[in-house]
């Protein structure tokens, strides 16, 4: 008797918890989707606005669907209207950014790999302090180096040039690239290196034969990180360049702020998407590595 009572109340309890569970589950998805729409909202607005005509923008609302695939504002944002002075468009600045990003990513990644290799596999007294010395560079507010950097670029004769920006981005990327490679190489067994050294392999041979072949993941993480940082930079770009040498983010900001004619929001949005699309593509294709870069060193299991 007692037993059956117990089991039935238990069943009831289980039934009840099944309903609460289902309710909680719905609630969970509701909240998650609510936030997803908050995050997607600006992107959606950007895309639909860029496809509307100015007339449609004035008539409709933020969310309203464009009447058709109107790509004219994209063409204007990328290639201009074809009249001379005062016609600003993104194409030349997009190439400036490419010319700046490629060498800067290459040099900073290479230097970081070498430094990370030395700091983990050729350890010496005080290497911890050298690491800390470099690591601090990740955190300084760049305002504290803007003034001397502007003067240095002037002295070197490379202010307002893509080369100047390559130098700046290479230097201030080194702390991050070193951190990435150092944290990666520290988990590679040192025995491998020791054995190779006994076999007579030298410094560079060990790097190219043993470490480089297993470095693909960290190279991807570093390259994506540096690419995103440098492509998206505005502070250095706007301080050390203007006019024709400006990278795309600076050009975008100038375009949006220019108050010469009637505000064309569709062109503004198309421009913003063009400036954001390279990093967005990299993120969608290699999100895993992007996130690993973001959280690297932050959460050490």
């Amino acid at each position, binding site marked *: 008797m007692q037993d059956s009572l117990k089991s039935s109340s238990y069943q009831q309890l289980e039934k009840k918890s099944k309903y609460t569970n289902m309710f909680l589950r719905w609630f969970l*998805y509701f909240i*998650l989707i609510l936030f*997803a729409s908050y*995050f997607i*909202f600006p992107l959606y*607005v*950007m895309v639909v*606005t860029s496809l509307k005509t100015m007339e449609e*923008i004035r008539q409709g*609302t*933020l*969310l309203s669907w464009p009447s058709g695939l109107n790509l004219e504002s994209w063409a204007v944002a990328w290639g201009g209207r074809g009249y001379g002075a005062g016609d600003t468009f993104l194409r030349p600045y997009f190439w400036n950014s490419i010319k700046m990003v490629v060498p800067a990513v290459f040099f900073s990644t290479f*230097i970081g790999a*070498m*430094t990370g290799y030395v*700091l983990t596999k*050729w350890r*010496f007294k005080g290497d*911890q302090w050298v690491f*800390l*010395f*470099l690591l*601090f*560079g990740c955190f*300084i*507010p*760049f*305002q*504290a*180096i*803007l*003034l*001397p*950097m502007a*003067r240095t670029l002037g002295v070197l004769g490379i202010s307002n040039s893509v080369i100047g920006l390559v130098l700046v981005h290479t*230097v201030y990327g*080194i*702390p991050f690239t070193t951190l990435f490679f150092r944290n990666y190489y520290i988990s590679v067994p040192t025995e491998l290196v020791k054995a190779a050294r006994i076999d007579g392999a030298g*410094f560079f041979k060990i790097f190219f034969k043993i470490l480089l072949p297993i470095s693909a993941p960290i190279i991807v993480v570093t390259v994506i990180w540096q690419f*995103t940082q440098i*492509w*998206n930079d*505005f502070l250095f770009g706007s301080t050390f360049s203007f006019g024709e040498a400006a990278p795309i*983010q600076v050009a*975008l900001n100038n375009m*949006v702020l220019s108050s010469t004619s009637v505000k064309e*929001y569709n062109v*503004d*949005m198309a421009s913003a*998407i063009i*400036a*954001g699309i390279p990093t967005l593509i*990299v993120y*969608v294709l290699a*999100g895993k590595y*992007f996130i690993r870069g*973001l*959280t690297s060193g*932050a*959460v050490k299991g």
Partner: protein
Amino acid sequence: MFKWLEKNLPKIVMAPAVGLIGWFVYGFVLWTLYISFTNSKILPKYELWGFGQYEKLWASRKWLIAVDNLLIFTALFLIFCVVIGIILAIFLDQKIRAEGLLRTIYLYPMALSFIVTGTAWKWILNPTLGIQKMFREWGFENFTFDWLVDREMAIYTIVIAGVWQSAGFVMALFLAGLRSVEDEIVKAAKIDGASLFTVYWKILLPMMRPVFFTSFVILVHISIKSYDLIVALTQGGPGISTTMPALYMTQTAFHKSQVGLSAASAMMMFMAVAAVIIPYLYSELRRENAR
């Protein structure tokens, strides 16, 4: 000679990094520090002038507004990013369908520049054609949302855009933290009759102390350096109501040509960051040495 080269090769390879950082980071910070003690205007002067620039800085109304804004922004930015980040991380941790897709959506703003997202938010928040108009067309005729052009409220639009950009990052940090906890701990607690809420509130979140700490450091760091977003969204306006220290520094240096004063403001920012970062690096290094 060859022997010496071979023995010192590692240090020679490392020299460029150390040299570049030594010169371009430490050397430059010291230069800025020195200039902040001089009476430099357009061009740097090298005679010492004492603390004059710092006195001028802290007597400037614009700087005080900038510091005030920084405090408001940092506090709200921290609270909202951490709360939203934790909620999303915990919810995503419940064996959710399409988790990968949702995670991608929450984190994509981090891949975009503040100039790009600032441009989008400026358009959304503008009262004539943005959200305000949308609600009015939907029938809420008295709906008003003009924070972007309101001196008192404009700073909060920067919070909205900033949280939108960075909350996903906190989510990623916490999700990685939660996933690194051994399943056994959760299972054991559940067998002991703990509800899911208790498991998170009493066991898992307290275990996330290092993640809280990391998020705190990174978010404060982002907010002290925030510059691009303000330039894109408000340019410090209306008036000077949304000025922040980073914007103050560049405006003072490059528009007003007050090099000494801007160096002083840069050093204040440097000290604020150092106060947060040095304890962090110290504890990280100690944790690593302890292992």
